[in-house]
């Protein structure tokens, strides 16, 4: 029944009312483009969101002493940090693990005193794209009482490279700790705490200042792939050296990020559903109109001995071609859109009339540049859904044709 001539007739019938065909195909194309564009933006957004959320501050997972997250009390430390790091890094999925120290302090420049936070970081292991020292050479500036200060912090207190500041705080025993440091540079960071309060020094300097030999407050872990995070966390938690410590993955550390990511997914699905309802309606309407117009012709074909099944097949193919035509155009435009924007990114801050690229929230940096991404899966889903929708849309016209009596059809 699916013969070349059935296909040919179906195809040419679409050309009979070219304007209507193009209108419907165009409507489906716009829908398909909307879906692909939305999901490409959502994927790009989701990815960027994940990278931002887990970026320098959060990491993919963190290790702390129990209660540290709630109390932030100086003495809730990780001990034998080098041993812990060695254990963690021996896991094949772990790409990076860095220890950090956080301590609220007073800083003084001549007579002025102000609040700050010492952030002790490992100049070597933090020097990567997702680390706290993402710019090449940043790590070399630290050590031997040389520090960097956050840009916002520096501006507020008029700190400039070369200045010497005094840092006064409490060590973990509660005694006064103080020392002098040279401001080596001002550091731009999207991490709020560093930007506004950060006194960034090497881990060694921080351990010395705060009397924390071989100790730290936090280990931040990056795995080699997002998909590996959960299994890695489970495996690490079984390490004997981590038995009394808390290890949490990013989604446990920042549950609101997960909620947002799920919402983003739902948005794409809603667009998809709207697209399919619109596609079904327009295909159904078109096919109904064009089959009504051709009632006489169907009567003639039935009179010749053409079976209703063959006629139905003709209509179904017509609808399928119509749907696929639209979906092909929409997919092509969608892919072109993604190809044009996936490299340079799409600045959606510009849509809001701002030219800032980044915002920060709860210590996380959010870029407003989105890199749209298209997955083959999306195209397959959309194509099969539109095909199925077109065929469902044609059930009604086909039911009419199957009931058609040749003589009556010819009379119309």
């Amino acid at each position, binding site marked *: 029944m699916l*013969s070349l*001539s059935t296909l*040919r*007739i179906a195809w*040419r*019938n679409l*050309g*009979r009312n070219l304007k209507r065909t193009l209108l419907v195909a165009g409507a489906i194309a716009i829908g398909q483009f909307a879906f692909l564009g939305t999901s490409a933006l959502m994927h790009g957004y989701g990815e960027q969101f994940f990278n931002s959320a887990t970026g320098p501050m959060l990491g993919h997972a963190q290790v702390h002493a129990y209660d540290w997250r709630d109390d932030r009390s100086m003495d809730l430390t990780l001990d034998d940090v080098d041993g812990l790091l060695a254990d963690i890094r021996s896991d094949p999925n772990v790409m990076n693990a860095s220890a950090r120290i956080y301590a609220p302090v007073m800083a003084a420049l001549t007579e002025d005193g102000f609040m700050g936070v010492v952030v002790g970081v490992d100049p070597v292991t933090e020097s990567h794209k997702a680390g706290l020292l993402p710019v090449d050479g940043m790590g070399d500036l630290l050590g031997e009482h040389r520090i960097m200060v956050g840009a916002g912090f520096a501006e507020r207190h008029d700190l400039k490279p070369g200045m010497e500041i005094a840092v006064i705080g409490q060590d973990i025993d509660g005694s006064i700790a103080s020392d002098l440091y040279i401001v080596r540079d001002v550091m731009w960071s999207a991490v709020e705490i560093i930007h506004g309060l950060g006194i960034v020094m090497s881990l060694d300097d921080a351990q010395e200042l705060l009397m924390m030999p071989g100790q730290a407050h936090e280990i931040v872990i990056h795995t080699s792939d997002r998909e590996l995070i959960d299994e890695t966390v489970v495996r690490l938690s079984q390490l004997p050296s981590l038995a009394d410590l808390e290890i949490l993955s990013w989604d446990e550390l920042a549950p609101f990020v997960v909620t947002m990511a799920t919402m983003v997914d739902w948005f794409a699905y809603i667009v998809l559903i709207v697209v399919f309802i619109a596609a079904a309606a327009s295909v159904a309407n078109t096919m109904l109109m064009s089959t009504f117009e051709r009632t*006489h*012709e169907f009567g*003639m*074909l*039935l*009179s*010749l*001995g*053409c*079976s209703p099944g*063959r006629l139905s097949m003709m209509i179904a193919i017509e609808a399928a071609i119509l749907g696929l035509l639209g979906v092909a155009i929409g997919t092509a435009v969608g892919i072109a859109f993604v190809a044009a924007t996936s490299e340079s990114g799409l600045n959606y801050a510009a849509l809001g009339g701002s030219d800032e690229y980044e915002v920060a929230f709860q210590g996380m940096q959010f870029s407003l540049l989105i890199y749209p991404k298209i997955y083959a899966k999306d195209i397959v889903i959309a194509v099969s859904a539109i095909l199925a929708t077109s065929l469902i849309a044609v059930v009604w016209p086909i039911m009419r044709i199957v009931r058609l*009596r*040749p*003589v009556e059809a*010819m009379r119309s």
Partner: protein
Amino acid sequence: MNTNLVDVKGVTKDFHNGKITVNALRGLDLVIHEGDFLAIVGPSGSGKTTLLNLIGALDVASSGDISIFGHDLMAMSRKQRAELRLTSLGFVFQAYNLIPVLTALENVKFVLELQGVDGGRHERAMSILEDLSLGELANRRPNEMSGGQQQRVAVARAIVARPRLVLADEPTANLDSENSEALLVMMRELRDKHGMTFVFSTHDPLVMAHATRVVTLLDGRVVSDETKNAGDAAGSAN
């Protein structure tokens, strides 16, 4: 050449339109012989189309018997009737006869395909078109042909599978006399050469002139049945 191809006995056909019942045929008897070139005439509403539809297995009689090629039409299922139409009958309708999106050649080939003819469709279709001097129209679509040309292609399509009986409901109604004449001459030749049987319903005197036999209906009954001498029919006379 006096075999009974079709035997219509006491056939009635009623149409029910809401409360109104139309008795389109009221006990009609008619025998069609092999080789007839038969014109069915009669005033509008006398039942010509209804009769052709019944003989063509497109519709079912309300009562009576119709046998065609010796088969009892009344006992056939819908599917068997479709099969009969496909294999043994040819149809030419008044207008909009061809599939508009197919060329003349494709229209003819399509019938062969419907019949399940596998090989040589192209050659067979082309040779029919050429036999009927329609070769030049092979690649034209219906909207690129005149009404007369379309009707002649429709005849080509009706006869390509060599049906024993061709039924034509007012085939010349939309044609001028020149085109009507050409069409009739063509069909008459097919009848004379291949012994095909043609049955027309018509108001056209030209068709009656070419017919070998003229049956007149009135109010759903046969009121006259004239068989002409061979010499009377225009096709043979000229």
